[in-house]
C-alpha cells in the first residue's frame, strides 16, 4: 500500500513509533508514553482544522505531543515537596580523579563526527537512548527539554518545579554522564571500525 501521509487512516502506522520514541525521552514509563501518543492522535483527529499544512503531518503531530508532554511534566512536579526537588546530585566528584589536577578520570577522546552522518543513524539513537535511560528521571527530562526542545532555562524550571541552581546541577550531571556513556558505548567503537 503506497504511503499517503495525508490519509489519517495511515497515521498510526506511519508515525506512532516515531512519536513513541520521542515521548520516551521525556517520559520513562512505557505505558504513560503510549497513552500520550494515543492522546496525540485523538487530539489531532478532533482538531483536524488546526492543521494548516505549513509543515508536515509528522511535525504537526509532534507539536501536539510536545504540548502534552510538557503539560504532564508540569502536573507531575507541581505538588512535589521542596525536599525532593533535587535528585541526589551526588557523585559528580566520581567522574574526577582525586589526585593531581583532579581532571576527568579518562581523557575525553576526539569525537570526529559529522552531525549530518549521525542524524539518520538509528543505531546511534538506540545507543543514545540506552544512555539516556541510565540517567535519573528528572535529570533526563531536564536535559531533553534543554537540548532537544531547546527550551529556555527559565521555562524548564517552571515545568520541572526546580530552581535555576538545581537545573544547572541536573544539566551538568546529565552532560557528564551522557558524554561518558556515549564515549564508551559508541564513539570508542566507532573509531575502531
Amino acid at each position, binding site marked *: 500500500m503506497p504511503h499517503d501521509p495525508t490519509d489519517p487512516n495511515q497515521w498510526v502506522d506511519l508515525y506512532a513509533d516515531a512519536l513513541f520514541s520521542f515521548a520516551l525521552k521525556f517520559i520513562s514509563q512505557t505505558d504513560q508514553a*503510549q497513552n500520550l501518543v494515543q492522546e496525540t492522535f485523538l487530539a489531532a483527529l478532533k482538531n483536524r482544522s488546526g492543521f494548516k499544512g505549513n509543515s508536515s503531518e509528522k511535525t504537526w503531530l509532534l507539536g501536539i505531543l510536545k504540548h502534552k508532554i510538557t503539560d504532564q511534566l508540569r502536573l507531575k512536579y507541581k505538588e512535589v515537596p521542596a525536599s525532593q526537588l533535587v535528585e541526589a546530585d551526588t557523585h559528580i566528584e566520581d567522574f574526577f580523579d582525586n589526585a593531581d589536577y583532579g581532571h576527568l578520570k579518562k581523557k575525553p577522546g576526539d569525537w570526529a563526527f559529522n552531525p549530518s552522518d549521525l542524524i539518520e543513524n538509528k543505531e546511534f539513537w538506540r545507543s543514545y537512548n540506552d544512555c539516556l535511560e541510565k540517567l535519573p528521571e528528572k535529570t533526563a527530562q531536564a536535559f531533553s527539554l534543554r537540548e532537544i526542545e531547546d527550551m529556555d532555562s527559565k521555562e524548564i524550571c517552571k515545568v520541572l518545579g526546580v530552581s535555576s541552581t538545581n537545573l544547572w546541577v541536573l544539566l551538568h550531571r546529565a552532560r557528564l554522564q551522557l558524554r561518558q556513556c556515549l564515549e564508551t558505548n559508541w564513539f570508542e567503537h566507532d573509531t575502531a571500525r
Partner: protein
Amino acid sequence: MILLDKLLEQLPLIPCQEATRLASKAMDQKLSLKERWDLWLHLRVCDFCTQFSKQIHGLRELLRKYQPQEEKNLSLDAKNKIKLSIKGLLF
C-alpha cells in the same frame, strides 16, 4: 605561545571539576566576568577539559538537529489499541 601558556600555568587555576561545571553552565546561562576568565584560563592549559567542552557542544549540535525516528517500536497490541480508540473519529 608556549611561553605564554607556561606563564598562564603559574596563575591560580580552578580545578577541573569546577571548570567542567562552568563549561556546562555557559551553555545555559551567561557567565560572570570572573567565571569567564576562570574558564578561559583553565581551558587554555587543560586538554581534558577542552575536549570535554568540545564534546558537549558537539552533542548539543547533534541533538538540536534530531528528528524523531522509529528507534523504539510500539507493540502491535498497542498500535491496535490506538487505532481502535481513534476509529470513531475517522471518516
